[in-house]
């Protein structure tokens, strides 16, 4: 029984690439404009990019970005909740036109799908209140920085931090955050999403971005061989970055404006 199931699965997997490459011949942008619907894969379990709100409606950075693009295209938006594991299959089987699901770019994925320009910042950095003047690793001299021991931020920060900086390594993420919020450390090295989650609670110690340790922004994914759609979405992203509407999304969900390298 098990082997039969596996055989069937293997057959499906073998045929899948054939069907997708065949289907990819169509022009997705033309279809969207004809059907007046933009179908977008969005996360539902990854706040602040995508989660389910108290009204049971999806909400977040990715959802607002999808809404911006649909508005610019002048079509209706259809949100398709996906998980991080199935977001690419949804795109490749043409169940959605775009994946706006905090997708990072890497060589492996670039073989499978195309990417637009970056639409959201996703990075590890050093965060602290405005009163602490720090713009680069060298400025950390004689300052205290909290970080979770063994986390990516710890490993990367340890390479660049000056010798007289006081890096306090805490056991886990929550302890690190508690140390920052109680003022036991001046700054915190963490992900921008974590900093945004802290900012949302409006604490007296505000973790505002100081500098980036490691950058891996989010991109919108779409099927290969869709030059018209790619150009159109890139154009919309450029326009919404220029007119401040994407900046507003960033401020709303991440508590900080788009970083300079994402603005153009």
């Amino acid at each position, binding site marked *: 029984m098990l082997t039969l199931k596996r055989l069937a699965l293997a057959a499906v997997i073998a045929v899948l690439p054939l069907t997708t490459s065949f289907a990819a011949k169509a022009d997705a942008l033309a279809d969207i404009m004809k059907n007046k619907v933009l179908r977008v894969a969005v996360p539902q379990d990854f706040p602040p990019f995508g989660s389910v709100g108290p009204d049971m409606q999806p909400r977040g950075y990715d959802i607002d970005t999808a809404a911006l693009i649909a508005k610019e295209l002048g079509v209706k938006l259809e949100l398709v909740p996906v998980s991080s594991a199935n977001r690419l299959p949804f795109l490749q089987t043409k169940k959605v036109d775009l994946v706006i699901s905090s997708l990072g770019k890497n060589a492996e994925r670039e073989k499978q799908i195309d990417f637009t320009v970056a639409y959201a910042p996703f990075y590890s950095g050093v965060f602290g209140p405005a009163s602490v003047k720090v713009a680069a690793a060298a400025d950390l001299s004689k300052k205290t920085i*909290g970080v979770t*021991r*063994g986390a990516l931020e*710890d*490993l990367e920060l340890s390479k660049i931090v000056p010798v007289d900086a006081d890096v*306090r*390594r*805490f*056991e886990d993420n929550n*302890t690190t955050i*508690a*140390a920052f919020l*109680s*003022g*036991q450390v001046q700054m915190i090295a963490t992900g921008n999403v974590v900093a945004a989650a802290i900012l949302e609670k409006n604490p007296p110690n505000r973790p505002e971005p100081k500098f980036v340790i490691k950058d891996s922004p989010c991109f919108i994914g779409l099927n290969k061989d869709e030059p018209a759609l790619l150009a159109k979405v890139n154009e919309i992203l450029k326009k919404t970055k220029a007119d401040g509407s994407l900046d507003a999304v960033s401020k709303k969900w991440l508590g900080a404006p788009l970083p300079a390298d994402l603005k153009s």
Partner: protein
Amino acid sequence: MNLTLADLTDHGELFLRGTALTIALTFASLIAGMALGVLGAAGRRSTLAPVRWITGAYVELIRNTPFIIQLFFIFFGLPKLGIRMGSLEAAFLAMSINLGGYATEIIRAGLDSIGRGMWEAGASLGLTRWQSFRLVILVPALQKVYPALTSQFIIILLGSSVVSQIAVEELTFVGSYIQSRNFRAFETTLIVAAIYLLLVLVFKWICAAIDKRVFAFARAGR
């Protein structure tokens, strides 16, 4: 089993620094904790009811809450009340207060074991109650409960590993730090455990030596 201790040879100095801090923290807390314990035990037997209540509440509070919560309260909670101290100071304070609570009860038991006759002997020498406590009662009382105190000291020594949680860079912190870098969890833990074991063995030997010298009187009559 694949044991690779070679990866850890570079970290000798770190282990040494961590061990030194563990010893220093334990030693400092033992002094402060014992002082608190003696005062607390005296307070538990005070003729003044409010003093008895306060020391009683102290013992109940410390002995009925987890050490890590006491530590977090001092490190993360007190800043909210405007009292901010570094992680090292917070660790020292938490360990001292914690030992103080347990030592109070242990020493009180020692005091209880001293018969009325000793107090009366002090009084007949013209000593005040406090002088009798200090000069006549305290040392034999401590002698009675010395084994229990020693175990409590060892608990404090080993319990100091908890303060790695607030980024005090003692032995356990050093172990976790090293294994977050080289992923040799088993080897690192093995070394940390061996150092703790060695520390406790040496510590017990020191305690036995103190017992021999300070409490020699107890064996004199036997």
